[in-house]
């Protein structure tokens, strides 16, 4: 019995950790979206290539759109859990 309880504890702990992580990410994404939407029109936006230090010039509107999409996806994920 005790072992089962421990098992449950483990899984719940794991899940809560995941949730926390996701929450943090969502917060970050919200900040990002706000920043992007508040940018002046003549500002340049660069996107970092993953795993490297190169930044590619990107379109401001497109980036804003993709970031919003990502935020929606994350929110959905959080709801599912």
């Amino acid at each position: 019995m005790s072992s089962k309880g421990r098992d449950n504890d483990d899984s719940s702990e794991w899940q809560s950790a995941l949730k926390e992580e996701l929450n943090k990410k969502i917060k970050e994404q919200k900040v990002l979206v706000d920043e992007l939407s508040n940018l002046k029109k003549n500002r340049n936006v660069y996107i970092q290539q993953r795993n490297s230090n190169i930044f590619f010039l990107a379109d401001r509107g497109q980036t804003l759109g993709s970031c919003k999409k990502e935020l929606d996806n994350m929110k959905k994920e959080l709801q599912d859990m």
Partner: protein
Amino acid sequence: MAEEGKVSVDDLGGVVRLREEHEKVVKDCESRIQHWKKVSGDYEAVNERLQTLPDQLSYDIMVPFGPLAFMPGKLVHTNELMVLLGDNWFAKCSAKQAQKIVDHRTKHVKSELDDLSKTMKNFEARVGFVKDLETFSARKKEYAEIREEVRQDIAVTKGRQRVAHRPNSKPKLETILDLKEEDEEENQEESSDEGSRKGIVTEEELWARLDELEKLEELEDEQDRLSDNADMNSEDTSSSSSEEDKEKGRRFCFSCKRIESEAKLDLLEPKKVRINTGKNTMLKFSERKEQKEILKRKKKNGHNNGLSHHELHKITTPADIYRLFVDVKNGEPVPRKSILKSRSRENSVCSDTSESSAADYEERRLTGRSFSHDEATTSDTSDGVTEEDSPTGGPLHPPNRFEAFSGMVVEKDPMTSAVPHMTIAPPALPTILERRQEEVAVPEVAPPQQAPKKVSKFKAARLQRT
């Protein structure tokens, strides 16, 4: 009762430890899976970028200028990539090729991930099982563990106890071949050692065999003493008994086998090898008795002589190299000449006598040919494994030599019949230098007949003038 309780506690401890270990494995798998997931994500990103990279001629980017600084720049040559193959080797390729490589690597990553997830599942199941076991052993006492204790003194040992090699002893095959090296007593010791080690030949058999060999040896010794004390130096001329001849033949067979194929050697049964070597040893001793006078002085050299037959072809130690490049003549080691150096003196003498009849016009051709001629002979000697066994091997292959100089036959000569004679002649001297010295020393004593054989055109002309 108390004991039982103790046992169960012990059991529990073991089970708990088992579970912990399994959990450790699971955690390890998890961390590895995470790592691989990250890698696969990186590859996906790269793939994504590669798909669109050649779409434009150039991209505006921020170029990293150290870890913190950036400066605006342009990315050009968008279809030229350097792909790291590993170990700091790169391959230049196009974006499409790079994509292929990425696909290939992602496949590998996927398979790795699959394997890891499988093992993780497996160990998770095991953890569950161990947990069940824990609950069982904790709750119920009616399950008894069956144990059988193994006492140390009854531990089954097949055959005799193994004896460690002596500090300086070599691997088995080597020791067998080196038996000849040892003195008789030591030989017996060693062979008996071997017997115990192998457990194939019983000690009684071995001793019987040794006694037999000893008797034979004594007999032969006496025979030798009676028959010939005069011909000590030459084995071949000595009136050795037919039995000994047989032995020798067998030995040659053995060595031939070895030379023919090393793979076969490996297949040889240890027992067979042992017996053969046994005969070898006997033969060795009899030979030794035969050439007592020589070998007493240089026992080691004699042994070398014996070994050179067997181990010429395989080099495992620097000593083998030495053996390989040292010819043994009459029990004395003569260092083999480098191909860059001149041939040994005896050979030159030989060629002198045989070519003394050569006509004058041949000289020039010979000088022209001497270099290639020399090459051929030296290569022959380096190839020949049993060169010393047949010193007359050189002249036995005239056609080869002839072919080697076929180019020279075309030369315009008054007498073409002399060419074959030339080719058949034993290895000529590579060195003009030695000869020259001779000439300088005694120019008058040795007129055109001998001296000018190796002389250059100019030298010959000068000599003629004088």
